């Protein structure tokens, strides 16, 4: 699967998991920050949703907060990590 396909798949999964029904994948800038006021404005519970989503959809189990902090900077970054580490 191409990086761009994973980005689109991730956007759709994030919208579904976080109940962002008012958004479409096109509304999410793949390079924008996920947390804080500048990007999607997600918070800690949303982060946990993404942790579980990565585990369920791609077999990726993040071990610690340090690792999460590096990956959860943008959808693009998560997609890159998924490409390199997915087990399913």
């Amino acid at each position: 699967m191409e990086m761009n396909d994973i980005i689109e798949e991730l956007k759709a999964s994030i919208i579904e998991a976080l109940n962002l029904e008012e958004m479409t994948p096109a509304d999410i800038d793949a390079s924008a920050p996920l947390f804080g006021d500048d990007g999607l404005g997600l918070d800690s519970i949303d982060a946990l949703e993404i942790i579980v989503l990565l585990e369920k959809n791609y077999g990726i189990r993040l071990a610690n907060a340090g690792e999460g902090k590096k990956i959860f900077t943008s959808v693009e970054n998560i997609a890159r990590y998924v490409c390199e580490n997915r087990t399913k």
Partner: protein
Amino acid sequence: MHQWLIRMLKHVDVRILYAFTAIFIIPVCLAVNPSRGIAYRYFRKRHGYGRIKSAWLTYSNHCGFAQVVIDRFAMYAGKRFEVEVEGYDTFQALAESPDGFIQMSAHIGNYEIAGYTLRAEKKRFNALVFAGEKESVMENRRKMFSSTNVSMIAIRSDMGHLFEINEALAKGETVSMPADRLLGSDKCVELQFLGATAKFPYGPFAIATMRGLKAIAVNVVKTGLRRYKIIVTALPYDSSAPRREQIASLSRSYVSELQRVVSLYPTQWYNYFEFWK
């Protein structure tokens, strides 16, 4: 202060401290603390009691809060309480299942007693706690629980607690968290509670439904001088329903149970902030 209190409680009967706080401490607290108005309005508006009864119950509620704090330190000092468990079978069935489950608590009565009594032999029990607790309180908890399978997960700004929660649930352990206060996240669900709309944290309901886990409410109320009652209630929801409906259904189950227990023990409600703002 805390260590000094624990040392004293090794030798002094809790009744002496109950009486001391009721006569000397609580009247001063009521005179200077905004909790007086908050508790009074809770009795007047949420339970519909008259002025005099609400004023008396406000005093009684503060004395009760002082007593459960004293009891908590008495436990750290090695004193034990009689504990009756209602709904133990519900807890035991989950404790013996291979899956993790969520235990939802509230700021009523003395929840910490449950940590000493409701233990699953085969599962680790993880309690989500506020990282701002006094170090002496955390240290005493660590000492009390050092020989048990109970561990604390402190809410941290680096989101490390989320990884610990996820790991614990993935391993089939129990995670306990308060479901009546917004902690670490502002996301909430608004529900009718005691006749008016109140905000409850979204997190506990979202976490349980992420993996379709079973959830129970555990409320611990003081029923006598040295007696507590743990009330365990299953919180049903349809884990095959769309996610949004699962969260709505589980949060309704929780709030309905909380309302039932608070209606039975109205003076043991210890949320001293404008809950129904």
